[in-house]
């Protein structure tokens, strides 16, 4: 009796799964947005469910329909594994009629998804991942790279620090596509500004302990420790740097820092830190208004990525509306000729290489005294015009922009 009860419960659960699957397959007459990001791992707070909520807000703001068609939305977790991201993307394009794919955090996963989207001729918008390869060596006519990239991060934070006297650098680098890309791009900026790179040590993603790596950095006698990592790795590295007294001898440069990281570490540990960001909730009335709506749903302030998710989804849907079709070529053409003006970007432009170019900001973390309370963390030190922040036409290796 007991066994039958369990069996029927399992069967019921299986039916629910199948039913979900079936309803998701109804396509053709809907505009379907898919999002594949890290929902459970180290990057889940900077994008994750908050990012998915932002896309839902964009869809709701369009009234749930565009060009007379209903808008559908599906989300999946790639667990920071490029192969899962690629196979999910393939399944969605082939079987579920997904028209546009948003790729969240993790550069390895985004590069894999961009390849699939190119093969299937579908619009792919990369938002959470940093690697500049997406619009350089590996650019594609169907890829749009929104928010930031490693080149912009390098030019923002690093150029300023070198100019302020931080001439010699040592890197602590996450050992995968994003970290390597960031180290390389930052290294070039350092050399261009007359500084030197003394060396680097590579650590695996979600490393358990940073103390040995930091001692090696300290032994290098460099003036600046560049942290070419993100999320939980960045947090643990900064914590250990404080604990071992490294911060007294070296300046620490966070090359990719999100507001969630500052929130975790607290201002005592992070005050004075320079970082580059593309968006901050407390910049103007439009950002504050949107952040307030987001806060009401998620109980925390949005990161740059979550705001970008909203903006990208909205602009995609507007492009679909303008051309009256979900044909990827037509939509891409429309996206590339329309300037982006919303709470996320002013006069943003999607270039032929797929890069969405807009102004970036050099921020400094406030001192505990300057901050008025939770989430009041940044002051804008400088605005970096988009044309200076990103790869230029002279530098690009992208065939689409020659």
């Amino acid at each position, binding site marked *: 009796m007991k066994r039958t009860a369990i069996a029927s419960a399992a069967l019921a659960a299986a039916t629910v799964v199948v039913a979900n699957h079936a309803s998701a397959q109804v396509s053709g007459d809907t505009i379907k947005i898919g999002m594949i990001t890290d929902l459970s791992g180290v990057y*889940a*707070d900077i994008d994750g469910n908050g990012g998915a909520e932002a896309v839902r807000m964009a869809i709701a703001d369009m009234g749930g329909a565009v060009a007379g068609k209903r808008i559908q939305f599906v989300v999946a977790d790639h667990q920071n594994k490029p192969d899962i991201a690629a196979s999910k993307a393939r399944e969605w394009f082939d079987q579920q009629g997904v028209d546009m794919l948003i790729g969240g955090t993790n550069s390895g996963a985004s590069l894999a998804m961009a390849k699939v989207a190119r093969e299937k001729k579908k619009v792919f918008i990369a938002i959470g991942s940093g690697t500049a390869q997406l619009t350089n060596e590996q650019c594609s006519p169907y890829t749009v790279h929104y928010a930031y990239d490693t080149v912009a991060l390098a030019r923002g934070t690093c150029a300023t620090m070198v100019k302020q006297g931080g001439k010699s650098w040592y890197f602590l680098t996450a050992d995968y596509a994003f970290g390597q890309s960031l180290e390389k791009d930052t290294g070039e900026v350092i050399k261009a500004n007359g500084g030197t790179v003394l060396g680097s*040590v590579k650590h695996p993603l*979600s*490393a*358990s302990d940073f*103390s040995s790596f930091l001692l090696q950095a300290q032994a290098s006698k460099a003036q600046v420790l560049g942290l070419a990592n993100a999320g939980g790795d960045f947090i*643990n590295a900064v914590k250990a740097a404080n604990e071992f007294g490294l911060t007294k001898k070296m300046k620490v440069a966070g090359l990719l820092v999100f507001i969630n990281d500052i929130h975790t570490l607290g201002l005592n540990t992070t005050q004075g830190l320079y970082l580059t960001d593309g968006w901050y909730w407390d910049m103007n009335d439009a950002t504050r208004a949107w952040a307030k709506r987001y806060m009401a749903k998620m109980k925390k302030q949005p990161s740059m990525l979550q705001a970008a998710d909203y903006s990208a989804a909205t602009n995609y849907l507007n492009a679909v509306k303008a051309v009256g079709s979900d044909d990827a070529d037509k939509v891409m053409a429309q996206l590339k000729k329309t300037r982006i003006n919303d709470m996320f970007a002013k006069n943003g432009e999607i270039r032929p290489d797929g890069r969405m170019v807009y102004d970036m900001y050099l921020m400094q973390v406030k001192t505990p005294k300057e901050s008025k309370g939770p989430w009041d963390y940044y002051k804008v030190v400088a605005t970096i015009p988009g044309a200076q922040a990103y790869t230029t036409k002279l530098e690009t290796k992208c065939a689409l922009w020659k």
Partner: protein
Amino acid sequence: MDIFGVPLQAMLSQLLLGLVNGSFYAMLSLGLAVIFGLLNVINFSHGALYMAGAFAAFIGVSSFGLNYWLMLLLAPLVVGAFGVLVETSMLRRLYQLDHLYGLLLTFGITLLLEGVFRSFYGVSGQTLEVPESLAGATDLGFMILPNYRAWVVLASLAVCLATWFVIEKTSLGALLRAGTENARLVEAFGVNVPRMVTLTYGFGVALAGFAGVLAAPVINVTPLMGSNLIIVVFAVVVIGGMGSILGAIVTGLALGVIEGLTRVYYPEASEVVVFVVMVIVLLLRPAGLFGRERT
């Protein structure tokens, strides 16, 4: 003086840091070894319970204003009590079945615990301050050692040795070991074996909770902190010999040191070196370094 191109000073400091990490491995693998050795259960939820210990400390300090030292005592008790609950309500029913069932159950508990903490706290993590009496650092000449890390080594060594002593050298330990060899015979002497087994499981997971509290001030407290560590800890137990108490302690410390050295010579391999050692040990001594072949 250089050792293979690395200055002696740097070498000494890396060895010491290896020892710090090794003491976490030792404490966690000790709990696993106790549980496996005495209950024959592969406790996959060990990492999640370590995380739960860290969170318990964080919650106690931030929400209830308790201090670190009290939590060092309280958190393992809470985690241990949770373990007792799990053992009496679920795990106990699986003893007569294959190992795999216990593993699956405890794996499920891991997913459950991680999910619960993730939905409440997200993955960015929480910060627990180092207690004031242990803040600061000591200059050892060859390196600056944060006082808290020194405390971690001392505390974990003390706990490990005490556990080893109780199980291997006292009459209580003898009863425990006898109870697992032949429960019926020991029961005939008037010993309540099921209760003894329950308390052993509770103690094993309390060790994980204790390690969690020790770790909380130095690493980011996140729901995933346990799963990042647990696979390495399992490898430590396998290398030391499944169920061997002394093996778990010695191997834990030794592997921490080996890992530390790898971080100097070839950092990219630092996360795999433990598994390379595991493969070599399994090829040469399938029962592990300190394990006895069971016939």
